[in-house]
């Protein structure tokens, strides 16, 4: 058992690995009752093209999500999540762009719940009946998402920014794609990616790490898996240019929302780690557009906006600096926000205060087993390791360093998206 020490936070994460390659991560909080266990499989909704040996595969969008639904269902059609309930635990499963996570949260019967989690995600057979009956709920989930403004906006924004990335498509799949998915698509994805060498288990909360590792290793020692095929996920090439400079579209918002997003190649920032880039850009955006910015105050006082915020995020080879405002006056607000995004200020006093907030949030973050579990799952699935120097990295973020990073960021490749209210006409049809 190894220990990953989180510098400056007085926290550590225990790590071990089963003989079959399954990673085990454990974080302990003895003051509480809650325990969260999760199994992360490193395959997600965007993994629709991959290569195994010399064979290339292409599957419809929505297969990873359909598979996640099926993994939670037994042959007779009952939902396996109910078995966790019998143990007094809550359980759920979610498909992300890059991973699929199965999880439980409870305070008792943790050994049984953990074994159940490990068994559910191990080798499985799917029945045609269960597969067919799950299509209806998935189609309804997809239709529900069509009325979800924030999902709709993110998809449109990705489509304006990226020409080739799979984030242009809905992870659940379109109605047509869901209808086209076959049981063989699910089996292919399962047999290719659901392997201990491509998964890890995370347990956080009031647990004994040695005991958890013993339970997982013992459970895995009875399971047989075929040889891992080392699938290669498609490496997408993406142009530096945004797809559309300006776009308007209608969705279920009541007040228009304006998005400005700059597409920045990470190649220009290769000497810094991604955490430092995100921290630096986030504090700068926050001081220019956040709750303490002069711009926000001015726009609110003039009643030009209702809300304003900004974040930085990344996808594959690109960093995105994104500003969003809720406004009834997009034409007046867009030039002001554009000007600010192209001339970001770095104010020492502001930056130091923002750093203080980030540190406070980091300290508070290591308290709740659910958020620590999510953080470990994110770090390992996305980066292959845990950031053990986050606090140190923020503390070392000096003004000259921030300036150095910001000088390498160009906001020239900018897309502007305006989400306008959709007409939701209403007519009485019947009453009794």
């Amino acid at each position, binding site marked *: 058992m190894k220990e990953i020490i989180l510098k400056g936070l007085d926290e550590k994460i225990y790590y071990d690995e089963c003989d079959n390659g399954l990673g085990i991560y454990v974080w302990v909080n003895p*003051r*509480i*009752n*809650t325990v969260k266990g999760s199994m992360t499989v490193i395959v997600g909704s965007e993994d629709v093209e991959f290569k195994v040996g010399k064979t290339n595969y292409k599957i419809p969008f929505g297969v990873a999500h359909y598979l996640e639904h099926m993994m939670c269902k037994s042959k007779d*059609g*009952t*939902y396996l*999540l*109910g078995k966790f*309930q019998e*143990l*007094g*635990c*809550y359980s759920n499963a979610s498909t992300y762009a890059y991973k699929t996570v199965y999880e439980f*949260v*409870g*305070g008792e019967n943790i050994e049984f719940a953990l074994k159940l989690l490990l068994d559910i995600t191990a080798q499985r057979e799917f029945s045609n009946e269960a597969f067919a*009956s799950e299509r*209806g*709920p*998935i189609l*309804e*989930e997809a*239709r*529900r998402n*069509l*009325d*979800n403004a924030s999902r709709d906006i993110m998809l449109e924004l990705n489509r304006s920014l990226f020409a080739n990335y799979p984030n242009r498509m809905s992870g659940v799949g379109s109605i047509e794609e869901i209808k086209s998915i076959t049981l063989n698509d699910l089996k292919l994805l399962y047999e290719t990616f659901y392997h201990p060498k491509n998964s890890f288990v995370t347990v956080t909360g009031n647990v004994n790490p040695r005991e958890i590792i013993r339970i997982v290793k013992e459970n895995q020692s009875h399971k047989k898996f075929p040889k891992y095929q080392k699938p290669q996920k498609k490496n997408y090439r993406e142009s530096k240019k945004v797809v559309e400079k300006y776009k308007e579209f209608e969705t*279920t*918002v*009541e*007040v228009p929302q304006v998005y400005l997003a700059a597409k920045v190649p990470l190649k220009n920032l290769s000497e810094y780690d991604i955490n430092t880039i995100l921290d630096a850009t986030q504090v700068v955006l926050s001081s220019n557009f956040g*709750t*303490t*910015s002069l711009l*926000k*105050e001015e726009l*609110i*006082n003039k*009643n030009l906006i*209702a809300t304003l915020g900004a974040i930085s995020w990344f996808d594959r080879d690109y960093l995105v600096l994104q500003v969003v405002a*809720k406004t009834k006056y997009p034409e007046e607000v867009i030039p002001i926000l554009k000007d600010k995004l192209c001339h970001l200020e770095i104010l020492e006093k502001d930056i130091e*205060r923002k750093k*203080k*907030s980030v540190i*406070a949030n980091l*300290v*508070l973050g*290591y*308290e709740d087993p659910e958020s620590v579990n999510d953080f470990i799952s994110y770090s390992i699935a996305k980066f292959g390791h845990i950031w053990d120097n986050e606090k140190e990295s923020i503390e070392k973020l000096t003004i000259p360093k921030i300036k150095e990073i910001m000088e390498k960021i160009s906001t020239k490749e900018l897309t502007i998206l305006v989400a306008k209210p959709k*007409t*939701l*006409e*209403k*007519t*009485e*049809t*019947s*009453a*009794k």
Partner: protein
Amino acid sequence: MKYKKYDLENMQIYTVKTDKFKNCYIELNFRDDIRNVDACKRNFLNIAMLYNSLKYPTIRDMNIATEELYNIGFGGGTSRYGYNIISSFNLDMLDPKFITEKDYLEKSLTFFFDMINNPNVKENLWQEETFEIVKERLHIEIESYKEKPSSYASRTALERLFHESFSGKRLIGTHEQIEKVTRENIYEEYLNMLRNSLCEIIVVGNLDMDEVVRIIKKKFHKASIVQKDIPTVIQNPIVKDKEETIKKNYNQTILTMIYQMEELSEFEKNYVVPIFDRIFGYGALNDKLGKYLRRDNSLCYGYSTDFVIKDAYLLICTGLSKENVELAISCIKKAYEEMKDGIVENSELETAKKKHLSDNVLQQDNIYMIADKYYYHEVFKRASFEETATEIPKVTKKDLMNLAKKLHLAYTFVIEEGE
């Protein structure tokens, strides 16, 4: 956890000392009878007080102050519990032991009470810019619930069913009501709130509670001593099986069904309702609604049930295709009939109790849940963690059947998808 109550002349302070958390939470509630208060104005006031104060005259100044105090969270909101209207202000701060800065606790509490004691008012008029910002925000907020079809469906169903009761009214009010709030009468509302509301404070965290109370006494001088007994349930007249359908340009149809409840005993409210809910349709897929709506008929992805004790109704909501509405209604009715007829396996009952007891333990790992539970226990006599642990095992199948008999289908409301 150590509970201690400080019974002061003009306010109650409820404290829970625990070293479970790295943060501390303080909540101050002004509570009044909604029948004697302009709810729209009270809600407006609550939001205006969260924006700034005389000492921090702009939103930016206020936010800078919170960041300097290691990003303390300052927030609040207005809610209703039966006929009680509650205006809350809360402070979320780090446990002072993590801060090297001297007097962090006192500085944080000073900030908190400064926001409450000294609103941004000069010559009896609320500061104009803040007033206008809040007004605009509320006008926008009134419409924003339409952005989520399920919220729109639930809200509209309640408005249509309970149009003459507080149960059907939103605290935010209407555009017309908001326009009637002025810079002058909102300050009058502030004075009215201080003078005439009950005042209760809850503190949770690893703090010296006597010291906290000493600081509160020093920093916060509530004007009057008030005593009121305000009902916690609005028992609306029972409506019989009303049905309505409207059409809207959403992609999915939303079905909402409301069952009204007859008067429940305290045992039923606290212990039978949550167990009934877990067996009937909590949303965990293996409950009765999950079985009939999703597993057997593939009609929907999600569904929800909301037992609203304070307004004596159960609201069921699901999204589906319009051609499946009739089948879904019959599934929901079938699930309800089974509850009434006691068609509940012993294993279902035991699993529901086990899960509820487990959640009762897990809730004690959440600082906000501890504050909430203690407040509602002390003020509204809702079950404490300890009482829940003792009483839940006593719930029987007979109790579930009796509760079902007190439920009456009042309203079926469908928002049909567009073409």
